[in-house]
């Protein structure tokens, strides 16, 4: 499944990041969004908006299109 399908409160481990745009891929990697990373969904913005996720001590807003390209395994 992909990250955008997780409901608020659910946690998962990133399996792969299917991004072909290199700057974006590198940016996500620098933030720690790489395979194996634990990730928790905290909030969904309404109207198909971004996902607010927690990675370690940091919180990120990820657009739904980007969340849809992050393959995760629920934990």
């Amino acid at each position, binding site marked *: 499944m992909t990250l955008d399908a997780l409901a608020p409160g659910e946690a998962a481990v990133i399996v792969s990041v299917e991004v072909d*745009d*290199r*700057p*974006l891929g*590198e*940016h*996500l*990697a*620098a*933030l*720690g969004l*790489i*395979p*194996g*990373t634990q990730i928790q969904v905290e*909030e969904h*913005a*309404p*109207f*198909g*908006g*971004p996902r*607010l996720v927690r*990675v*370690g*001590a*940091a*919180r*990120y*807003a*990820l*657009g*739904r*299109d*980007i969340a849809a390209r992050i393959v995760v395994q629920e934990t």
Partner: protein
Amino acid sequence: VPACHAAIARWKGGTGVRVALAGNPNVGKSSIFNRLTGMGVETANYPGKTVEVQLATTVYDGRELGVMDLPGTYALGGTSEDQWVARRALLEGGADVVIVVVDATRLERNLYLALQLLDLGVPVVIALNLVDEAWRRGLRVDHVQLGRLLGVPVVPTVAVRGIGLDRLVDVAVRAATAAGPLVSRPRYGADVESAVTRLAARIEAVSTPRPWPVPARALALLLLEGDDEAAAWAREEAGVRGVADEEAAVVAERHGEPVDVRIVRERHGLAGEIGARVKLGGAGASTAQDRVWRRTTAPVTGYVLAGLVLAGLFATLFWVGGFLSEQLTALWEALASPVVRGALHAVLGDGLVARVLVWGLDGGVNAALAVGVPYVLVFYAILSLLEDTGYLNAVAFLTDPLMHRFGLHGRAVIPLVAGAGCNVPAIMGTRVLATTRERILASTLVCLVPCSARTAVIAGAVSKYVGWSSALAVYGVVTVLAIAVGVALNRVLPGRPVGLVMEMFPFRFPGLRTTARKTWRRFSGFVWVATPVVLAGSLGLGLLYETGAIWVLAAPLAPVVEGWLGLPAVAGLTLVFAVLRKELALQLLVTLAVARHGAAASALAAFMDGGQIFTYALVNTLWIPCIATVAVLARELGWPRALGIAALTVVLAVAAGGVVHRVWMVWAEAAGPLAIMSR
């Protein structure tokens, strides 16, 4: 290797110790920079890049220091603009020491950048910032142990209050002037280390100068990470490339993932391990403040609050900006204008030159005052405050789905709302967007947002003489057109929309000093760019008017203005003059109308009917925002794009005006008696 940036070269030439400040966004880097430096700050821009580097030479605690504030970044790769600028400025500036500002509450993620800087082989000192916030969360960081693990000095700081900065500078200067360079090298897994060591040995054997003055180990790591600039250097070095490919294949085979991914993973792993070993106490509990702050992104409360804040921003720009604008204009007209006019006429007599100069030095300065100080300064003050508290990111989070329809993401909403006050700062505000594509899209949309000056015309003409529902209809037409343009441009412009990836910060009290200086820096940027263009534009228009050339030039406009738009010819001329200041359109229209048709024309309704007034206000609203806006567009996006956007607005205005004119005619005929009654 291209020539060093001139401002950076000058900074490099300074006599003191050169310190560069690096760090993630929003960790207090600017607070440290502002505390260390005085007023003499220079901003360096690489051509075609919008991310800036701040440079200053200062005397702190009796020591001369060169301080460079790099853009806030999460890493130092070469592909994204901010990271490219940070790395380039750092390596070009030849800093003696890099102070890496890290957020104690998000230590692991922040250490990633610190490790990357250590990998580059530059001397590093860590400023462990926000230790007060960490304490409030029950989190303590053993800074001595952190220093031991990283092999570099660590100084705890609270930058907004200036705590720890004396010691930080002391330690940094000592690190910079130490006999041997204080360089520590992080150690990764055995396979990566062996690959790096073997590749570095091969690089040592090459005589071609390296792209930057970095150790072979640093270049080896960059090559394995797939860095573009390092790869470009290695293109001529078949031997180096051979070893790099070989080693990359070995690591990939052993770990089942590409070597660049492996290095990123091991660097994150190392950062996490170090973080875990130096953190004492809890995992960073959330505070009551966090829980309140979280409501800013919650569905219901979030929208209510965002609506209030955006309305507040709009209202402040509209009312406070408008009030200041009126006061400044009145003040200029009462005090400075007579002096300027008097002096010009006294020296140059009553001739053409004097009259043209009055346009520029009186009218032009007045125009700059009417826009610059009131709207731009007020907007920047609010924007900086929203930015520094972290609230801007909450608004971006909530509005992202809406902005998506225009190929933008949530961060574009602030410029669009600000555009209703004044387009100029709004376009400068599009800098929060990362790609040129987004900035073109957002800037074009901003130009179609009726600013306060255009609103004044809509209110003063349509609302006053035709009715408030017609005034609202002008906004309706403009909104529909703006949406259509946004959706169409998103389809037409090459490239893809970029998704939102944004860190969300806990609420932070803004350092007023930092916020004030940020506001001032942005404001002075506007003043230096827009003022000359407004003055030159005023002089040019003055010359056309005073020589009578304007009437000759206006003649070809007549078919469009009279035939297509159905407006009186003089109205077309005032639309042209309105590029100086949009609200001028109405004043000029009345002035010219009186000159041509006599005093009875002072009421607009005496010589234009409802449909004409509506068309007039619509065209004035849509076409070329104003000369200051075009100047800022040119600075932000370059002249070709600025003129392209201006041309688009002209086409849009003429097309929409003509259509509205015809629709109104048909409607007026059909509703005949009713339309006459309403007049």
